[in-house]
């Protein structure tokens, strides 16, 4: 039996592990090695320089500026996305019609459920192009609508203003992400047994209170996983920026430069692949720390039901 168990484990793990090691682990291991060289990226010439790239990184102001933006993105985008998604999910799933908290959403919920998921099927490249144009100060939709409804004084060169460029990019990231988490949370809420809500309603709990004390704890695991997944998505938000703000400097006055963009620029424009790899390793460490921190901080007693 024991022998059979290990043979079974080995047979199940063999193929996936080989694939993973060959195509994922080994390239990253090489990238880690490259981060300790001064490789320029176009030939085999390289010198092993130990940890010098990491030492330089510690005092690289552009790196820290980019890291700061990443920190902002990672704080704001997942939080806002999750908050929106939770709110939308709650009102269309369990807010119920008057006096029937916990059973079905408000009127029109089916319709909203279809619409809200739409952005998720929009490829990032398309979203980038679409919103690059959406924010066009002259012919874009946003300023156009603002002018039509008499709020013309609010019209701005969105992507050209250092104070607004990063928030604009965040808005697009949030726009693209809410739909999926909305569906995810709605589904999770639907799986909460209805009698739990009924008990709450009998106890006289209103919608807000039901949400805080029942709905949210019940789906806490989903929220936790979502935060990690969103965090990773945001750190990799490079493709969107590359299409929306194709600027080597990272937006107006460097106001939108994120780590992956700086990494890309260092590697391909600057021809410093060794240094770029060090940036990548640093980014990886930060992401790992984030994931661990989120898991630790948000660990709660699983609600049994």
């Amino acid at each position, binding site marked *: 039996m024991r022998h059979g168990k290990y043979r079974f484990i080995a047979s199940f793990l063999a193929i996936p592990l080989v694939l993973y090691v060959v195509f994922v682990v080994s390239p990253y291991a090489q990238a880690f090695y490259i981060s300790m060289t001064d490789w320029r990226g176009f030939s*085999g*010439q390289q010198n*092993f320089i130990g940890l010098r790239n990491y030492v330089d990184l510690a005092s690289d102001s552009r790196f820290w500026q980019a890291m700061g933006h990443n920190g902002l993105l990672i704080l704001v985008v997942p939080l806002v996305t999750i908050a929106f998604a939770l709110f939308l999910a709650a009102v269309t799933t369990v807010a119920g019609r008057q006096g029937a908290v916990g059973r079905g959403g408000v009127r029109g919920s089916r319709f909203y459920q279809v619409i809200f998921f739409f952005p998720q099927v929009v490829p990032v490249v398309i979203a980038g192009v679409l919103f690059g144009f959406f924010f066009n100060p*002259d012919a874009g939709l946003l300023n156009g609508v603002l002018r039509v409804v008499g709020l013309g004084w609010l019209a701005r060169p969105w992507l*050209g203003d250092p104070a607004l460029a990063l928030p604009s990019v965040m808005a697009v990231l949030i726009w693209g992400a809410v739909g999926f988490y909305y569906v995810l949370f709605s589904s999770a809420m639907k799986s909460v047994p209805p009698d739990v809500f009924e008990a709450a309603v009998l106890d006289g709990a209103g919608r807000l209170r039901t949400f805080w004390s029942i709905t949210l704890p019940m789906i806490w695991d989903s929220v936790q996983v979502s935060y990690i997944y969103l965090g990773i998505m945001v750190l990799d938000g490079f493709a969107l920026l590359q299409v929306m703000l194709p600027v080597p400097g990272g937006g107006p006055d460097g106001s939108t430069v994120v780590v992956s963009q700086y990494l890309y620029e260092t590697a391909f424009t600057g021809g410093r692949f060794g240094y770029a790899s060090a940036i990548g390793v640093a980014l990886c460490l930060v992401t790992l720390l984030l994931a661990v921190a989120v898991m630790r901080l948000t660990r709660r007693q699983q609600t049994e039901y």
Partner: protein
Amino acid sequence: MNPSRPMPGLDRRQFLQRLAAAGLLAVPGAGLLSACATGGGGTTTAAQGQVSTTNPLGVATDAPLDVVIFKGGYGDDYALAHEAMYKEHYPQAQVKHSGSTQIAQEMQPRFVAGNPPDVLDDTGAQKIEYAVLVNDNQLTDLGRLLDAPSVDDPNVKVRDTLLPGVIEQGTFGDKFVILNYVYETYALWYSKPLFEKNGWQAPTTWDEMMAVCEKIKAAGIAPFTYGGVNASDYVIDLNLGAAIKQGGLDVVKNMDNLQPGAWKQDTVLAATQRLEEMVRKGYFMPGSEGLKHTEAQTAWVQGKAAFYVSGSWIENEMKGITPPDFAMTAAPIPVLGSGSAMPVAALRTQPAEAFVVPAKAKNVNGGVEYLRLMLSKQGGEKFAELTASVPAVKGATANAKKTPALESLSAGLAAAGSNVFSWQFRTWYSSYSTLLITETTNLLTGRTDAAGYLAKLQAETDRIAADQSIAKYHR
């Protein structure tokens, strides 16, 4: 010139073997192993053929030729025509054509693998920086192209068929390694009919510039626009161009040579302050900082702005959207004042569209031969005909159909004569590009002033000059 030395006892082939071994064995830090797996790159023995009068470069007539073209503003139809010419000369050769806009990502692995194309047009926003390739010894010395007989007349060397500045632009240190095929000219562009209708004149001095901008603004049109999101650096032709014309070629040589105080020269400061004055007077279209260059250019051809600063690719780039009666016209950058070292007609001509033959290409001779064919009369005329632009070879536009822009450019170049200039600092030191875009946008939006702008550029110049790891060039 090349600060990067190979590791003792570790050559390219070994490095590739290690990469390969690491890939297959997946040992962390595999680069430290002495590996035994098969190499990735293999040896490269360039194809070699018989030298003759019709084949002066010794092309192996049956060797395949791999051509990668940047498919940007000029498209790649002209390259197809050049490839057809190559097929005509070497009917046994297979010619592979690819057009791409993502040069760096697609080509980088091929360079590392020792399998680069035979001809590469390394251009565009995603190009591989030239300094990176040059410093890594990745490019074939094209000196023998210059000394080869030209296609049309065996008594004339290729060197003597080129327009002025082409050799200088492609030379790093003492080697000519890049053939910049398109003779780009930078100017102040406007719509002639629009100006005639309003009685405006293209300015020749900055005082006239301020006056005409005031009139244009009064007419309800923005005098200038620019692509603040990604291309505000086009505008530097205004201030740097004026500074160089005023102070002469030494002004730009000081910049290129990373001289202390190069960006604080009197004429540079004076010209940049005039630019700052234009910003203060609101001569740049509001909202331009939120536009990409194509969006800004679209606003311009639709008459929302009167002037646009750009290179000569502009007409081709805006072909689909420019109204038929727009008559795009080039004017030289106005001079600061009287006593300028160069005449008003002087132009910045900066050959671009960088054609290189990678040193490790399989068919180096074929690649060089392809460049020689591009520089033939027929090759040049094909290019001019298909792109309405000026190639780097003399006399190619004589028979081309003259669009308004090409016509005004030809006239402008004739008027400039030998009074042309160019700058090299952006080609030699890639970090300038990022800074110029960021800081020029800051200047044009009033977030910084002339002094602050120049201080940033001087600081970068001093940083580059002090950095031992950056290869330096001189002119």
